[in-house]
């Protein structure tokens, strides 16, 4: 005993460096180089798309048959302005359209992934933590929903919606918000975006829920959960303070993968002619038009695909950085 006490007492009055857990996470995240670079790229992409109306040199839908298929970095002969990324098959400025497209694509991808992750997290947590009949109901529902072919359902819903716009009631203020964010000017397009987001959110959560349930099942059996229970911790406390933080990290990776999947899904939808339609640009429908001219003007596909690639990569790295920063055992 003598070996421990005197030293400790002597140092007792040394002030304890205090740092909240979130400060620790942020500090660790800041040390992750790829994650910081990616975060920077994401901020730029989001910033450009938000300030698109101010930044862009050309009107979004201005068609000019004389300026079709300009290559990147071509200078407009009339105005002397630079077409940074060239022009498309109708002579519209590619740079301008990509920035506007980001609004629709990112809104759809981020919102629907967030919603579906939220649903999956909650249901997976409840199923894994409580088990028994709660797990039974959630797991069977999950298996049922997981059998739905997402793309087909999306096609049907959008087709029905285009036919009869009042079939799926969506509150007006939601549509107004969507129109404001995405700078979509027609209400039926806003309706399509809303339905796409909702449908993806309601069908895409099964993977997340399954992952979360598995994680919770393994975390739940850890002795530190029992330790908290022995101290009198309630279910809510144990779930939020102990189970969630330990089960959460793989969900970050799952989120980034889901986001990429949905970015691509949106382009498939456009490809089949059911997504957001021209003249409103999305990364998906721009890539699809570019595909038609892939052999004559290969730069088009590169330019149109670049934002999807960049965003996907950046989100992945940010996710990795966040996961590592949240794990105290990881040396950064």
């Amino acid at each position, binding site marked *: 005993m003598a070996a421990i006490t005197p030293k400790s007492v002597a140092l007792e009055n040394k002030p304890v460096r205090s740092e909240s857990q979130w400060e620790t996470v942020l500090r660790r995240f800041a040390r992750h180089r790829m994650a910081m670079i990616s975060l920077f790229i994401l901020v730029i992409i989001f910033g450009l798309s938000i300030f698109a109306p101010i930044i862009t040199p050309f009107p979004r839908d201005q068609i000019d048959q004389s300026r079709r298929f300009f290559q990147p970095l071509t200078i407009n002969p009339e105005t002397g302005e630079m077409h940074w990324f060239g022009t498309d098959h109708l002579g519209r400025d590619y740079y301008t359209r990509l920035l506007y497209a980001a609004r629709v694509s990112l809104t759809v991808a981020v919102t629907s992934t967030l919603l579906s992750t939220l649903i999956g997290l909650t249901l997976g947590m409840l199923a894994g933590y409580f088990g028994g009949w709660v797990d039974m109901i959630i797991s069977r529902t999950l298996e049922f929903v997981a059998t739905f072919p997402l793309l087909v359902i999306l096609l049907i819903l959008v087709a029905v919606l285009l036919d009869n716009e009042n079939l799926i009631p969506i509150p007006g203020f939601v549509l107004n918000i969507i129109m404001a964010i995405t700078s979509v000017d027609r209400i039926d397009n806003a309706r399509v975006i809303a339905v796409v987001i909702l449908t993806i959110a309601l069908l895409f959560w099964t993977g997340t829920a399954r992952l979360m349930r598995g994680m919770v099942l393994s975390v739940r059996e*850890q*002795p530190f959960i029992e330790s908290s229970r022995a101290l009198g911790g309630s279910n809510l406390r144990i779930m939020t303070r102990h189970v969630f*933080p330990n089960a959460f990290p793989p969900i970050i990776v799952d989120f980034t993968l889901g986001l990429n999947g949905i970015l691509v899904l949106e382009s498939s939808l456009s490809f089949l002619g059911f997504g957001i339609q021209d003249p409103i640009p999305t990364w998906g429908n721009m890539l699809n038009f570019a595909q038609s001219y892939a052999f004559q003007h290969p730069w088009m596909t590169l330019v149109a695909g670049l934002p999807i690639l960049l965003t996907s990569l950046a989100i992945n790295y940010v996710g990795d950085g966040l996961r590592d920063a949240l794990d105290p055992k990881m040396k950064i």
Partner: protein
Amino acid sequence: MSDVQLDNTQVSALSPQAQQSDDTATLLEVRNLKKYFSVKGGLLRRTVAYVKAVDDVSFAVRKGETLGLVGESGCGKTTVGRTLLRLEQATAGEVLFDGRNVLTFSGSAMKALRRDLQIIFQDPYSSLDPRVHIGESVAEGLTIHGIGDREERVQKVREALIKVGLHPSHMQRFPHEFSGGQRQRIGIARALVMNPRLIVADEPVSALDVSVQSQVLNLMRTLQHEFGMAYLFIAHNLSVVEHISDRVAVMYLGKIVELADRKGLFTSPRHPYTKALISAIPVPNPRARRQRIILQGDVPSPLNPPSGCRFHPRCWMARAICREVEPTFEEKVPGHWSACHFSEEVIDSLPARQ
């Protein structure tokens, strides 16, 4: 097992506590505690059998004492600890803490009781949340029970950390930054900060390096002198139990077979199983020659325990009666309890040399 025998144990188990309460006040009394785990089988997942992990166990812990509970793996000693903390649902029996039956407590009463009743876990690596600072981890009980404001809690945590021999600056660290012994100290601080009256220590040193074991044991004893809490010390290592306990209970296959004060148990065991266990304690003297009792066979399955005395298939003293009649757990000499038909003969009896 017949009802008659059950009644016998019941009566005999009740009487000692009445006598003991005269000299030292009883803090915790366990009466006829049973914990059966059902074994499901078949197509309909019906219960086909029971594992009688704890089968009719009675004992008492006095204020401020250390009761050692020993037995080999799977004898149910850990289940006893978990059941009386209500981490497992008891099948039958009573757990009286201050004379009130804990097993009937409602949620809020039980939560209040958990301030007085703490546990130290076996594995110091997995019993601390890897994502929670030590400071927050030690303060968890205080937070749950709303004791003090933030400043007071930090102060209490600092004190507890110092008491267990850690530095207050360790509050900002995570469990993985500590050694096994340090983590077990943190586990003790978690319990200590609540100022409990009873700590169930579930094999607190068996996961630790031998050189660290004695440090943690001595720490526990020092804290007991200072704060006066009682320990129910669960272990499979007899020398550890001998080191720390005031009284010792020996479990075999879900039952307590012997209970006595430390000296009485180690110098004159009254159950052959205890004797065999004691003979297996290594003696740190290569010249010492003594006969080790090597028990034959394995521990029988608790699914289907042997008839009569549960120890008879492995006992060198077993006679016909042991196969048929289950010995009652009774006071052979004052303060010394044993469940053996021939408890008087144990001291002088040795198995034939193999």
